[in-house]
């Protein structure tokens, strides 16, 4: 990304941020998630600077990008919520079914793991990744990696 391209994106950011936030708030009703969606849309713009700078309608470009971010976020959260529910159900089974030492040993403490709590914060409590990163005292990039690792860890546990 050249400096000219980033200056272009900066100007687009200052021009469109408030409007795009209105768009995101209509879908999320959660200020933090809406702000994060707008930030991610501009993150994509920085990953594709040639595309946005050359677009005949940069405002439309960034609005469409935000639309895709919103759709992806919702799909991701819905999938994670289903996964989370499955985990809760599986955890409940350990109480209802007859004791099985190996099964109990493997699943009984899943809900108390950091990975479970991390995923719950995002999917159930509705926190943005930036909010979570701030709480944990880590960078946003590190937080995203932790979430990916948490999903992989819990998926392994269920399988």
């Amino acid at each position, binding site marked *: 990304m050249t400096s000219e391209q980033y200056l272009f994106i900066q100007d687009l950011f200052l021009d469109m941020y*408030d409007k795009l936030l209105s768009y995101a708030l209509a879908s999320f009703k959660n200020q933090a998630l809406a702000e994060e969606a707008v930030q991610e849309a501009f993150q994509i713009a920085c990953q594709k600077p040639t595309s946005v700078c050359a677009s005949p309608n940069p405002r439309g470009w960034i609005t469409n990008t935000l639309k895709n971010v919103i759709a992806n976020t919702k799909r991701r959260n819905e999938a994670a919520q289903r996964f989370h529910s499955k985990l809760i159900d599986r955890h409940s089974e350990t109480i209802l079914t007859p004791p099985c030492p190996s099964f109990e040993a493997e699943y009984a403490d899943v809900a108390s793991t950091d990975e479970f709590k991390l995923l719950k914060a995002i999917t159930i409590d509705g926190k943005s990744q930036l909010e979570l990163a701030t709480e944990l005292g880590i960078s946003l990039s590190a937080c995203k990696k932790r979430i990916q690792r948490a999903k992989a860890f819990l998926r392994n546990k269920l399988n």
Partner: protein
Amino acid sequence: MSDYLNRENRDFSKYDTMETNVLQDILRSDAEAPEDAEQDTELLLYIMEVLAKRRRSEPNPGITAQEALKVFEAHYLPCVEETYQAEKPIQSNMLLRWRRGLSAAAAVLIVIVLGSVTAGAFGFNVLGAVAKWTQETFFFESIHSTSASEPSKDHAPMYTSLQELLKEYNVKRKLVPTWLPEGYEFVEAQVSESPKQRYYFATYENEGKSIKVQIKDYLDFHPTYAEKSDSLVEVYESYGIAYYIFSNNGHLTAAWVIENYECNISGPVSLNDMKTIINSIEKG
């Protein structure tokens, strides 16, 4: 609003008085529509602006676009740079040094630019300021320097000094050091600009080592500044201006704001040399 009427002969004024939840329903419907669905961008932008104005008039409107931009540069842009670095080979030794500096565990300075359209503000109030300056921001700045250091055919003419470049753009404020450690020679100076800001930078080299001077001119508003971080070496005052000097893996960076300019000098220099560089700015 009359822009829309004049440009497109479309009158959206009926949306000005619609209930907020009705307007949000329209936006949400668009967000949930298939990707290839027809989209009325003009109408959507109009509604987005109506809602934005209503939100701005609320008691707690949230952060401004300028503040959100600083959050973006502090937290989200570094994620882009990581992807950028993973996909493209690093060509600049300076870039490698900056990258290693980012792995430092210490807290960093983050600049939060508070917009102001007040003309005639000089200097800044250290006690009253709020901002910090991120290492991520400097990482970004050095990305720009690297990408623009290959002379662009769009940037002509070539300048013989940074001062010459600033003079061409009628920058009267003294911002350029007139002393550098022995052996450093001017290589190039370039400018990038957009409607809201102008970005000047210059490179000086000495046997593979580089000193870079970067100046961002916000044109319309005045960045404000302050406070401390663990990587801060010293707040050095020269001619009434406070220069924040911090270290980054063997490099020193001096950063300061003055009027509508946000500036920094960085390179592999000693603290004493950095202070001499700083003192030479006002002497020029």
